[in-house]
């Protein structure tokens, strides 16, 4: 992997002419050729269009033009981002073969920045899951140990970066779907502030929670990627108009004087190997000059419950458009209602059906106040509690995932056990605040542990600053970990 270089190194090399985008691409395509059959990170590899694109970028450099800040960087996109003329399936049978007639905003921005799209990555169907086992097209395997899951729902994107199939990838995070697989695959994963990255062209799961973000090998690459994809988009009414900061500005500053919050009432459930690394993270930040402060976030505990009302409620509405009338799968039947039922019964997997049922129930007349209404109140409480915590602390540190990567099938029989994977990531989706997972040593069986850095809205530079310090400290850690 290391010889492939980071996104920052590739872009710098291609822009200066010292690297050819075509050569960089071939290295990554070779990695795909060697291991993709085993890992299944992709639903769709775009070797031909990527080769054309890399050649065009090299030609631009030769002609004296700058292809942009991601010049020649091989990028993989979660297969719930609309790409014009390229299949976009959400790993669902109901959208198999569907080719969008338009590019999402992030896809356009990446093209304008000189990136080379190598493929569309696998996910839990419609981004519902934490292991990528819910894909209609088969699971993705963790490149670090193919007996284990890569996490999810953006498991394909996390695996693509971990396996060296792409230098940079993008996923979507509705309850932890970037941060949890990043932790399980040992890469950096960022969920930006809600509204910072346009959702135009992202197939909706839960609109008020969904946010696109990058997977990278380094924190600096994450800052580079955010610089490209963040910004106001008139096509997304929830997009934030504030000017962009320099996401790389604070990476080298260290953490001297910063207040790092420890949530004293954090829900229990993290495995000892993970908890131990998080403790160690507090220690190295203290050693680097930060102060640890204890804060309380009482509503944190209720996040999972509120999330499993709000997200399915929105999903039940967002996924109602897959009715067999206009695009995707249609199963013919005697009349329209029977056609809807047959199409949706055949097209959706069990987890998607489970959440549509949950959400429909939660919004139903007579139940709205008891479920959806109450969940919205928890969401408001959550925002208040975090606001108070951020009066005392600059950032908060938690585990990204309660455990390291786990074996296939170990949680599929018990949906609730799978839902618990997102205990620590869900609250920042409910508040719309940014969070990221940064690899910090290893745990059981030498598997990577991700530490989550949480920050107030729009404080990504500060979040990246702390993550960069953890990244530097991680290089010197004993990689053994608890067993």
């Amino acid at each position, binding site marked *: 992997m290391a010889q492939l270089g980071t996104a920052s190194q590739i872009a710098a090399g291609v822009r200066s002419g010292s690297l050819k985008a075509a050569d960089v691409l071939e290295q990554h395509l070779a990695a795909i050729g060697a291991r993709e059959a085993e890992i299944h990170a992709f639903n769709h590899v775009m070797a031909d269009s990527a080769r054309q694109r890399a050649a065009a970028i090299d030609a631009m450099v030769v002609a004296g033009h700058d292809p942009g800040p991601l010049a020649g960087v091989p990028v993989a996109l979660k297969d719930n981002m609309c790409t014009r003329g390229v299949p976009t399936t*959400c790993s669902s049978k109901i959208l198999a073969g569907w080719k969008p007639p338009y590019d999402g905003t992030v896809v356009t921005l990446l093209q304008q920045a000189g990136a080379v799209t190598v493929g569309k990555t696998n996910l839990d169907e419609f981004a519902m899951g934490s292991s990528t086992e819910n894909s209609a097209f088969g699971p993705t395997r963790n490149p670090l140990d193919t007996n284990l899951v890569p996490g999810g729902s953006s498991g394909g994107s996390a695996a693509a970066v971990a396996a060296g199939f792409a230098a940079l990838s993008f996923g979507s995070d509705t309850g932890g779907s970037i941060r949890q697989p990043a932790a399980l695959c040992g890469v950096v994963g960022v969920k930006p502030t809600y509204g910072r990255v346009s959702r135009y062209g992202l197939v909706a799961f839960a609109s008020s929670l969904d946010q696109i973000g990058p997977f990278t090998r380094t924190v600096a690459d994450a800052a580079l990627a955010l610089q490209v994809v963040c910004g106001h988009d008139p096509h997304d009414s929830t997009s934030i108009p504030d000017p962009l900061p320099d996401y790389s500005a604070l990476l080298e500053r260290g953490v001297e004087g910063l207040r790092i919050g420890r949530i004293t009432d954090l829900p229990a459930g993290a495995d000892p190997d993970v908890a131990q690394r998080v403790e160690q993270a507090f220690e190295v930040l203290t050693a680097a000059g930060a102060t640890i402060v204890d804060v309380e976030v009482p509503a944190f505990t209720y996040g999972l419950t509120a999330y499993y009302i709000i997200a399915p409620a929105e999903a039940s*509405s967002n996924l109602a458009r897959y009715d067999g009338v206009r695009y995707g799968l249609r199963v013919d039947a005697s009349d*329209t209602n029977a056609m809807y039922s047959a199409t949706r019964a055949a097209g959706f997997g069990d987890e998607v059906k489970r959440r549509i049922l949950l959400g429909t129930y939660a919004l139903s007349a007579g139940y709205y106040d008891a479920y959806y209404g109450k969940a919205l109140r928890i969401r408001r409480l959550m925002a208040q509690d975090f606001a108070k915590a951020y009066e005392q602390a600059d950032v908060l540190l938690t585990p990204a995932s309660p455990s390291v990567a786990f074996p296939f099938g170990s949680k599929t029989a018990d949906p609730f056990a799978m839902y618990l994977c997102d205990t620590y990531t869900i609250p920042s989706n409910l508040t719309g605040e940014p969070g990221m997972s940064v690899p910090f040593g290893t745990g059981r069986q030498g598997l990577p542990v991700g530490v989550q850095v949480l920050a107030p809205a729009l404080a990504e530079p500060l979040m990246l600053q702390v993550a960069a310090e953890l990244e530097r400290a991680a290089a010197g850690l004993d990689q053994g970990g608890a067993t």
Partner: protein
Amino acid sequence: MSQPTWTQDGYELVVGLEVHVELATKTKLFSASPNRFGDEPNTNIDPVTLGLPGALPVLNKYAVELGMRIGLALNCTVQPCTFARKNYFYPDMPTSYQISQYEDPLNIDGWLDLPDGSRVGIERAHMEQDAGKSTHVGGGEGRVHGAEHSLIDLNRAGVPLVEIVSRPDIRSPEQARSFVNELRAILLTIGASDAKMEEGSMRVDANVSVRRPGAELGTRCEIKNVNSVRSVGRAIEYEARRQILMLDAGESIRQQTRHWDEGDGRTHTLRDKEDADDYRYFLEPDLVPVMPSAEWIDAVRASLPMLPAARRTRLAEATGLAVDSEAIGSIVDRGQDDYAFAVHDAGGDIGRAVVHLKEAFAELGAEPALPAADLAGLTRLEVEGKLTATQAKTVVAELIEQGGGDAAAIAAAKGFEAMDTSELETMVDEAIAAQPDAWEKFRAGENKAMGALVGHIMKASRGQADGKLVTRILNARK
């Protein structure tokens, strides 16, 4: 003066109307596709209209402004508002939810004053998107049941609508028709909609119930598919009679949605309330609340033109006619009241002008080609007694045909010369002599006896005598 309350067999009628109007925007409510009627099917579409995965709605600001115009014209309070999703499956609804306003509509608590002086409360006027259009073919007489297949046109999907919901203040079919007419006149005046019921850019649903006067509101039925102002009255009246027959037979009214059939003149059950969809409304997460600033609201209010009611009052006061007279109503409906004032400003008589406008200008639109000064010249001749009403009518027809001209010259060319008074006096003498009984009755105070005398004079003058002048002479002799 207010409309008589409709009653039958001791029941009174209670009606509330829900009127959907398509807004006259260039583009759709949430996308840049054209909002245009009559184009080739499925040409005014885009990812948002098609409900494609990943597409997001962006609110059309001008549509909000037109929505505010409607609210302000209906004396509503414009308030911060939100959008919600109304979830239901139907093939011409591409996202399987309609974006509408539920808990916080743009406009609340207004009223509409009708020409007869009655006032109908407006509960709310909210914004929402239209669905596409389904055409059911191959049997089933255009209904989905029995059709072989259905064609879907999404040109209309996403077109901006405002739904105006009245309070149940309407008490007769005539008042309901008057409400629709007055609302339509306002929408046209403020440029919010072309409000064509036959093209579906204005659609009226009626909530109808009956009760004993003073009793609690009865169970209502909602009548749909009412496609003309005339049908509004017919459908309401039919439905009221149907409900009264049921109540008198000891049956109770079930809350239903009913379909008006123009052909057989009846309403038919569409669905019972128990079968209604649960729409599972929740706040639309892809949109943010709309917070109209006081400055914006004031600017929209200031930009509103004079509304039909105020224009009727203005014209009635200038002419001395009753505000709900047919002449005032029809001239303002046609938008010819400004023209009437232009005749006045050109030195003409506005009272005579209104008579001619009502009779002869029905097809000439809001800006008649005939110069106002020419009509003014004609009315001056009438007032000066140089032309009789009948002669003036002939001259007006000529002026309209020629697109203008000198009324005096036309009158001269037609040989219209005002009779002098002495000639008339002689005719009056002859009439009194010929009809002594009528004359005695008239003198005794029976004013209608005057008709026989005037008729005699008109006949003798072959219609050329000035009726007003004759009346004056007769009264003077009395």
